[in-house]
């Protein structure tokens, strides 16, 4: 255990291999082991009251490519989210009749995601980044719903296209750095983008293109509704819960530190798109008739808040935006899981396919209502804290953005509550499949209690969470 960080991403990968034989038991065991390891690293990191950064250095190869891992609280926080949601996904899919590959894909996905959050060498960062696509491609394409192939291919090509811009940007960055300094390096800390000259904007926008597709930011978002809708419930959870966060993480880890001035000059454009995303996502969500699609569009709006905060480069904006990454993972994760439970029971997702579920499935109604309220930013639950701080940050930099963002908060209720009412309150119409919906069983309730209590905790006492992330973000404050 001399290399805790390597262990961190190798554990789920080993789990993926073991899953081939042990299927869900392997997944459960390794998810728990993985979560335990993350907890261990997090504890080790925060012992003594000061958050320390854990580093790991490997050999250096040709062109300065080196195996270099590092974990500050931002990395560990997101890895913890990965491990937690992975465990939740395993628990939630426990009774699915799926082949071993399903479980292996989830473990492999967790491994690749962990790698993204750990890597400090841009080459490895890119490799892990792309590696996340493979398991997710199979999760959507093999275990998705009716239109899964189309969605899987669209997801793959769209996000891959985005990453190609990122790759080109990285190549340009590294080679330009070599041209100027004579040193080959992919080390994030060693690279200095301030001397790039005219190439700098190209590199910056290339990186942004890669990250913006992942986030996703309007107008690069249209892979998301398809992918989320067609993916199996647990796939949607990982997709929304963690994979979208890679984009914001990329901004925080790569784009903002490398291009402090350029990213600030781009604020009107990027922030404008983010603010627009919050309104646009909400309006689109209002028009949806498919429950899962509605939640997918709401993700676009929610990630807009994260971006607004992060781009403001203020203390409260960065911390709140980052907390909002976690919040969105929990809230949207819970919502996707519940739509999955519905789909498992009735094989339908349309708003008009259900009705009267509040009487038929009161537990489901309770948890869905709770998560919906968290999702629309009810104070006292997690969503509010992140949104409020992110908007407060945005307001101090470019007030019009915050104004648009607050409008987005207002609109959130206009899509979430009608959808809730249609499914849970309205009487079941003709052709409704509500009769097939049984209430949540004990396992499902346990999963949702866990998520709901976390939402409540973050909502009522967010301070420890904020204090955890703040040190890692301090350097980005302008």
């Amino acid at each position: 255990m001399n290399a805790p960080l390597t262990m961190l991403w190798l554990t789920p990968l080993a789990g993926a291999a073991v899953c081939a034989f042990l299927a869900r038991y392997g997944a459960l065991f390794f998810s728990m082991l993985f979560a335990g390891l993350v907890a261990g690293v997090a504890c080790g990191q925060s012992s003594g009251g000061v958050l320390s950064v854990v580093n790991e250095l490997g050999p250096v190869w040709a062109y300065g490519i080196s195996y270099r891992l590092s974990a500050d609280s931002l990395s560990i926080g997101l890895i913890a989210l990965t491990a937690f949601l992975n465990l939740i996904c395993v628990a939630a899919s426990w009774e699915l009749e799926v082949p071993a590959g399903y479980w292996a894909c989830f473990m492999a996905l967790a491994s690749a995601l962990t790698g993204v959050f750990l890597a400090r060498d841009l080459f490895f960062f890119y490799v892990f980044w792309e590696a996340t696509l493979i398991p997710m491609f199979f999760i959507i394409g093999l275990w998705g719903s009716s239109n899964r192939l189309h969605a899987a291919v669209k997801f793959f090509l769209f996000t891959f296209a985005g990453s190609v811009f990122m790759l080109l940007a990285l190549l340009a960055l590294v080679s330009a750095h070599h041209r100027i300094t004579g040193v080959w390096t992919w080390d994030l800390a060693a690279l200095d983008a301030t001397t790039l000259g005219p190439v700098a904007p190209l590199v910056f926008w290339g990186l942004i293109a890669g990250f913006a597709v992942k986030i996703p930011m309007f107008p690069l978002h249209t892979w998301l509704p398809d992918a989320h809708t067609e993916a199996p419930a647990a796939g949607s959870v990982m997709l929304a819960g963690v994979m979208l966060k890679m984009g914001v993480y990329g901004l925080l880890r790569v784009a903002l530190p490398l291009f402090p001035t350029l990213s600030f000059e781009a604020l009107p454009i990027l922030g404008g798109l983010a603010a627009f995303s919050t309104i646009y996502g909400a309006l689109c969500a209002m028009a949806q008739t498919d429950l899962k699609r509605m939640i997918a569009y709401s993700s676009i709006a929610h990630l807009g808040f994260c971006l607004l905060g992060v781009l403001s480069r203020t203390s409260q904006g960065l911390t709140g935006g980052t907390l909002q990454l976690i919040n969105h993972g929990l809230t949207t994760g819970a919502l996707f899981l519940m739509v999955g439970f519905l789909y498992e029971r009735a094989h339908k997702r349309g708003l008009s396919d259900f009705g009267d579920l509040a009487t038929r499935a009161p537990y489901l109604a309770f948890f869905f209502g709770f998560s919906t309220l968290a999702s629309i930013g009810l104070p006292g639950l997690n969503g509010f804290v992140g949104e409020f701080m992110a908007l407060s940050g945005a307001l101090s930099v470019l007030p019009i953005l915050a104004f648009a963002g607050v409008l987005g908060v207002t609109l959130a209720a206009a899509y979430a509550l009608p959808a809730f009412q249609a499914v849970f309150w309205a009487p079941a119409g003709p052709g409704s499949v509500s009769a097939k919906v049984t209430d949540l069983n004990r396992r499902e309730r346990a999963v949702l209690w866990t998520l709901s209590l976390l939402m409540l905790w973050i909502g009522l006492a967010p301070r420890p969470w904020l204090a955890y992330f703040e040190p890692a973000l301090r350097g980005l404050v302008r």
Partner: protein
Amino acid sequence: MTAAQVPWAAWLLFAAPVAAILIGFFGFRRFKPEWTHLPILASCAVVTASAFWLAAHVYTGHSFDLNLFRFAEAGDWAVDFGLRVDGPGVAVLAMVSFVGSLIHLYAAGYMKGDPGFSRFFLVFHLFFLAMIGLLTANNFVQLYLFWELVGVASYLLVGYWFHKETARKAALKAFLTNRVGDFGLLLAVLLIVLQFKITHFHLLYLKAASGATFELLPVIGFLLVWAACAKSAQFPLYFWLPDAMEGPTPTSALMHAATMVTAGVFLLVRSWPLISLVEGLPHLIAWIGAVTALGAAVVAGTKKDLKRILAYSTVSHLGLMMLALGLGQIATALFHLIVHGFFKAALFLCAGNIAHALHQPTANVDDVGGLQKSMRLTYLSFLLAALSLAGVFPLGGFFSKDAILDAAWHHGGALAVMGMLVAAGSAFYIFRMLFLAFYGARPEQKQAPHAHEAEPILGVPVLFLALGAAAAGLLKEPVERFVLMGWRGMPSGLAGLDLVLNLPGEPVLPHLNMTVAVLGTAMAALGAFAAWRLTMSDPGFDWRWRGGAAEAVFESDFGWKTLVDAFVRGVSRLAGFTGRVLDKGGVDGAVEGSAGFVRAAGAAIARSAQGRINDYLWWMLAGTAILLLRVLR
């Protein structure tokens, strides 16, 4: 002062309801749902006792305000949560807990046997808890938290009978309209953080009054007023409240008297030291209040549903409170809020008793008349509360309304005239209701056979509320003192505001002015006489005018509801367009290869993701080539 020195009563305000809700939710709801009200009624008793104890404590000069814990923090940005038990807060709190508890008691009888009894009580108590939190918050973020919680609880209660489409619609309308108001509050709070770096009420007051100019203050003030207009049902955002009567009657009573609509007025009282610094804003508030009060009073006189009449009456009375606020009479506004809480709760519960007697969820003036004989206790309670509402000496409503009319009279001009007209209008609608429901059965009314008096659990709380409404005039002096204390210093180390703050208008209540008292009473008599003429001496009048153009005008609230509906349709059409046309056809169409859009927009990113590997490779090659060329040149 430390947290350890906070009196027990203050903790109990929160501990009791939270415990009751948890016990009810995890214990009784599962095992004995029909007993869910027991811990909750106990909590009501504890809260009322605590509130009165705190009121006495504050009255003897022991108000306090202290930060308890840091809610959120990042860098130099921080928000603290705490407790503020001061004059204005505790005055409203005492009324809310007393009236609210009686309504809880009533609900235990009214909702008995309803399949959702347990759910009702839990949410009902959450509503109550949210209001307690709102009244004891010591900063804007905390206030916003409870403000939203009030909104959610009201949503769940208005939509309580969710099988009814009208209930679902009304709940959504209430929540979304309030959300439109919350847009103002959220933005105001964000701007306060930006401008002042603090959200603590008292420190804000001191900072705002320090003489420095704060260029965002007018915007903040305006947004706060906007938020109050939604919550307290003022023009232009009042329209959700009349529909919100779709909830069970105890909900309407609680919402109209104690826990929801008073929040907007209270917000303005809390932020008065900020609002009063903005030139012209108090005047705007006064006008909003006067227009709303008059318009709603007229419309209330034309409604048929008993609860709907009362709902418009609430809008009208909230308008009067706003008028008083706008004229700088904070104490008057709060005094009327408290008196109104008593008589409006009593009136709603009387309407509930009538509906209960008819075995209907709600009652209409067409349903029944002459209840005076069969429902004596309800009649007596209604009469007391109605006379109080109409402002008949010496009942509570007389004193509070007179104080408002007096303020308007001294201001003079249109506001004075409008105030007097509202007095006449209020008397008209409440006497019309009284005559139609309780006197002489009319041939047009259906005459449900056996309307009988309600059982004691429904009758007694109403009687207490009605007696409260009659006697509330005695509270005039205490409320005045309470409000004055709100601006004073705190033993917990906060400087007094009365020294640094040049509050416009005396917060002290005006003394009885004979001219206004006589004139106001005359107006009320005029309204009552008109109601008698049109209902008693011409019993069929109320049925004859219906169906004409006049009804169309009144039903649409002078056309405003039509405009609002058009706006809502517009937004939903915009959403439909964005989601189906713009996103599906436009943005996604570009990605999916819609040739039209590709030609039009020609976005390179869209082409590369069309799904054709060839294109995609070409782009990759081209991009690589360009970059390599630039880099390696």
